[in-house]
């Protein structure tokens, strides 16, 4: 089994597949929609409409980039309240037109700053959770790299939650965890092992439903191979969800999170 700290390191690599790359490869006809209709367009979260095997879906995700300048523009995938409000607007739009929602999570956490606080970061996440729990269409959340805290959960209240093999999902970064509990940020490595943030750990805890492979026989797969599996799995998910009524979808989602 891989060491937790190695997974943490890999989950943060800028070379990882990002949301827009995945959307371009797995889906067709992607049209990006901007803005929360309230304040501004948050570049840390992208979203829009696309098709998969001819079926219309709404795709939303944190967008991280490879180069620094672009990453600054994207705020490293850490959304302000308007990012969450944009995601909610698109999810409600999906509900109206009966489209499944596919969320790609890749954030160290919701952005912590003065403006984010002033515009209600807590309220924005809280509203996403409240609305997502009652959304009448299927929601699939896939954690691509980092899944940090409430900022990740705000896109991850899905009927199913999946993780990439080299991704992490936790209540806080290992650095933050060790500095809060042990008053020592340098013990992050130790914290990572304790926190149960790896896909294997989280499968055991039933926090996630599936791990998408990034390697075979300990050899890394190419992006093409990773995306091919992802496409097949998402297709199967949509098939599985198609016959379910909105009441069933809501009830199943409720029970999934009620179990914790």
């Amino acid at each position, binding site marked *: 089994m891989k060491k937790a700290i190695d997974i943490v390191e890999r989950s943060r690599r800028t070379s990882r597949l990002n949301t827009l790359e995945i959307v371009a490869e797995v889906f067709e006809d992607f049209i990006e929609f901007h803005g929360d209709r309230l304040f501004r367009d948050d570049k840390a979260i992208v979203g829009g409409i696309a098709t998969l095997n001819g079926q219309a879906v709404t795709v939303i995700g944190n967008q991280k980039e490879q180069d620094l300048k672009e990453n600054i523009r994207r705020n490293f995938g850490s959304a302000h309240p308007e990012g969450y409000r944009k995601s909610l607007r698109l999810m409600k739009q999906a509900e109206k037109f009966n489209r499944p929602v596919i969320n790609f999570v890749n954030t160290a956490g*919701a952005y912590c700053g003065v403006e984010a606080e002033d515009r209600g970061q807590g309220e924005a996440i809280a509203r996403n*959770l409240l609305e997502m729990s009652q959304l009448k269409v299927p929601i699939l959340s896939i954690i691509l790299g980092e899944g940090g805290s409430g900022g990740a*959960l705000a896109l991850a209240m899905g009927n199913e939650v999946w993780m990439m093999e080299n991704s992490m999902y936790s*209540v806080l970064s290992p650095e933050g965890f060790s500095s809060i509990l042990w008053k020592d940020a340098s013990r992050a490595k130790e914290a990572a092992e304790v926190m149960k943030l790896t896909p294997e750990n989280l499968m055991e805890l039933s926090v996630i439903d599936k791990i998408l492979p990034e390697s075979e026989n300990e050899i890394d797969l190419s992006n093409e191979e990773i995306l091919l599996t992802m496409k097949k799995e998402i297709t199967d998910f949509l098939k599985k969800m198609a016959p379910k009524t909105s009441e069933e979808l809501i009830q199943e989602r409720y029970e999934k999170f009620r179990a914790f």
Partner: protein
Amino acid sequence: MKLFKKKRVYIPIHVDRTQQEDTTVPVVPNGMFTKCPQCQKSIYTKDLGHDKICPECGYSFRICATERIELIADEGSFEEWDKEMALSNPLDFPGYEEKWKQAQVKANTNEAVVTGKATINGHQTVICVMDSTFIMGSMGQIVGEKITRAVERATAEELSVVIFTASGGARMQEGIISLMQMAKISGAIAQHSKAGLLYITVLTDPTTGGVTASFAMQGDIILSEPRALVGFAGKRVIEQTIKETLPDEFQLAESVMENGFIDKIVPRNELKNTLGKLLKLHEK
């Protein structure tokens, strides 16, 4: 080495210390004065009164769940639920169980929230009161479970819910499971809301982190006590990130209301009547 072994005999002086005390300086017994954490002024403890409100700035001192219930519920009306809950230590975090047991003794409750049913000025409601003296009011599996059960029961019995929030955020020792409580409680609140029932949150000092980012901000009506700290990210974390000192009013309930996230700030001594009135106005 003889030099060091030499035992010197000092001249003993007998002093009657009682006569030495300066009678011009008054003796202040411990606890006679209390420093207000908000305005930093020293307050004659008795002036805080029964409600524990700072007479200088109006800050409502932190009180434990038992004190809160005494202030809000009609006498003898409170029926406590889920007094016994078993701890799951999902990360097998070393020392957590001991810490948890110590907290129970210190706070005199079984967890960081007390739940049950009560009447407020004669109006029946489900009530959940968080207790910041219990591991900083942090939200773990038991806190989440107690609140979820209380909200579910309110939905089944067609009752309103009043939650007093006080929390430092997620219970770190429970890792991802504490994060999942946000989703679990939100689900129960959504069902309660769908049933057309009233949910009031009363934000008290401090309401932060995962509690702010879930049920604290999901009330149909959001009240707050004066000068309570209300925010998502910690002020110090933000200061470290932006390398600036933030003003005193940052994340105070008054500023949060200015920003549009709180319906009304209610002083502690008016809280019971305000809640009673709101419950009455929503009775079917």
